[in-house]
């Protein structure tokens, strides 16, 4: 995988393959999430469904630029990035459908899924909490003398207000840990616009105060998003230093599928560019994608999803009889019986 090295976020020489991988991951994410939405509406999914519509270019850019062995702490809108980093459609569906075969075995759900072997952290719900955890993994690697890998942690505009986010950003700067924090500024934090979340002009202004490089992009532009993430991730890998990347975009759905997003600014939504529409146009214009190829991809991906769904649906659900109800990994001698 070829990655840009310039840090000025204006890299254009991204390489054909990377751009295609990126686009395909975007489409992968969108189509899988559209399927999740329809499964949700059919009542086939337990718990909430949160989608990354509009964020695919940014998220996938992160996932594409990571290497095997890197650590990724995705957030609730990172389907595209997860798939780009290597999660499979089956793995996703297993968790959404509450299968015991899924990474979380029915114990935890949906957006919390992750696999330490794959380098995808299984998030807890508390916003900001996964940043220090990703940092701790990088610290552990440094202490063990293993170098070369970086971390990528996703966060939203709203969660930049969390104390946890701040403590982690400061800590990675102080300890010089190569964590790339990618902020998807999608205009809203649940129902609240940016004005409820921060008062600076652009969250990238936070970088200087932590003493780390900051990057910014229009993340509805797939090429810009990819160039910026490639630059930031390469910089982290080469300098060992943390990076802050802010992608500007718009959440093209409700907060979750239970939410119609009626509070969103209609004009803003009208005017918003969908990276999934712009992406293929841009790619065709750049000679990266042949005419008609996008639709072929769509068909292939749809088939993949169909097949995966059929496989996963047949797998057994999580069920209480299979559970040992042990929260400790050790057999402590004094283990009290459940009262």
């Amino acid at each position, binding site marked *: 995988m070829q990655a840009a090295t310039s840090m000025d976020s204006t890299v254009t020489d991204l390489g054909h393959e990377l751009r295609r991988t990126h686009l395909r991951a975007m489409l992968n994410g969108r189509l899988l999430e559209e399927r999740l939405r329809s499964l949700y509406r059919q009542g086939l999914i337990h718990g909430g469904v949160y989608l990354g519509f509009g964020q695919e270019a940014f998220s996938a850019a992160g996932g594409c630029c990571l290497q095997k062995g890197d650590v990724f702490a995705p957030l609730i809108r990172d389907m595209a990035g997860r798939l780009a980093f290597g999660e499979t459609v089956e793995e996703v569906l297993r968790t959404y459908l509450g299968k015991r075969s899924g990474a979380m075995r*029915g114990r935890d*759900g949906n957006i919390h899924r992750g696999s330490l072997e794959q380098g995808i952290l299984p998030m807890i719900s508390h916003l900001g909490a996964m940043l220090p955890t990703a940092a701790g993994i990088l610290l552990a690697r440094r202490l063990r003398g293993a170098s070369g890998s970086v971390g990528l942690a996703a966060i939203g505009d709203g969660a930049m207000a969390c104390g946890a986010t701040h403590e982690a950003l400061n800590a990675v700067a102080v300890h010089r840990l190569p964590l790339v924090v990618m902020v998807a500024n999608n205009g809203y*934090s649940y129902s*609240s616009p940016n004005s409820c979340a921060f008062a600076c002009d652009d969250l990238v202004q936070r970088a200087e105060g932590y003493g780390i490089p900051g990057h910014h992009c229009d993340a509805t532009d797939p090429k810009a998003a990819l160039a910026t993430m490639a630059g930031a991730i390469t910089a982290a890998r080469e300098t060992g230093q943390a990076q802050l990347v802010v992608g500007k975009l718009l959440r093209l759905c409700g907060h979750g599928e239970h939410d119609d997003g009626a509070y969103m600014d209609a004009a803003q939504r009208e005017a918003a560019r969908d990276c999934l529409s712009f992406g293929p146009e841009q790619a065709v214009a750049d000679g990266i994608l042949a005419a008609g190829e996008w639709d072929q991809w769509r068909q292939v991906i749809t088939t993949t999803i169909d097949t995966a769904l059929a496989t996963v649906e047949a797998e057994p659900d999580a069920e209480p009889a299979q559970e040992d*109800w042990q929260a400790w990994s050790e057999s402590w001698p004094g283990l009290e019986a459940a009262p």
Partner: protein
Amino acid sequence: MSATSYAGALRLALDHALRDDDDVFIYGQDVAGSFGGAFKITKGLSDRYGDRVINAPISEDAIAGMAIGAAMEGMRPVIEFQFADFATIAFNQLVNHAGTTYWRTGKPCPLTARLPVGGTPGGGPFHSQMAEAWLGHHPGMVVFAPATVDDAYCMLRQAIASNDPVIFCEHKYLYEQVRDDSFNPDLASALPAGEAAIRRHGRDCTVVAWSAMLYDALRAADVLAREHGIEIEVIDLRCLRPLPRDGVLGSVSRTGRLVVASEDFPFGGVAAELLALVAQHGFGLLDAPPVRVSSLDTPIPFHPSLWAAHRPQAADIVAAVIQTVRF
């Protein structure tokens, strides 16, 4: 359905509190505007009370800290956490600051923290937890956990009127499930907070519950009466801190037996406190060992069928009562 829901009663209580006292204000994530909070409890209030319904950044620690400041200044802030599970972020401010203010300074700290607690199918480990154990342990904290529509209204008004910091636990499962078509805010029973309510009389065994677990206890009561001829007395604790000690001991003095049913984790906490209290101060009243029914000792599972096995059910209460009564 025109009956008032638990959620509706909460909304009305906030509405009336804002109406009656200019010092009341609401602060929390997404509470303002047309949205009105993750559970819509504050919906419409910002239209009526404008700048007294304020959206907060995702900063639970600051939200609690600011409420403490406003309370010290004499206002009566009501803060909303989106889920009780996220109040862990504000734990320090709540127990070490709000809880200690009156004792340290002699000045009251009249804030109300609304926490949507408890499990629902698919809620998972971080949107389902109870909060009474970890927020009730420290001195100075008051903890309410209403189960009925009347109590949702009356206790929220009492919480806001109180000069102490009140952790107000609203069970998410009750928001729409519990409805009362005879609810009338003017007539709503204003049992003092800190007194337990007897929700069903019975002579054979006292079953103490609170919040959503009250309904499991009442279902268990039906089953026990119908199928086993056992009449349990169901005590709704309502207020967990201070604990309605007399109500519990009084009931046990009549029945001689105690089962405590709690949705919370089994170790420590309010159910342990109740058994300890009755063992120490009502030892002579007990004809059989007191029994706890709590959740299993793991995080709360996401999958509905695991969740149903994790959370205590009416059947578990039935079994515990039978064990106790047959002792």
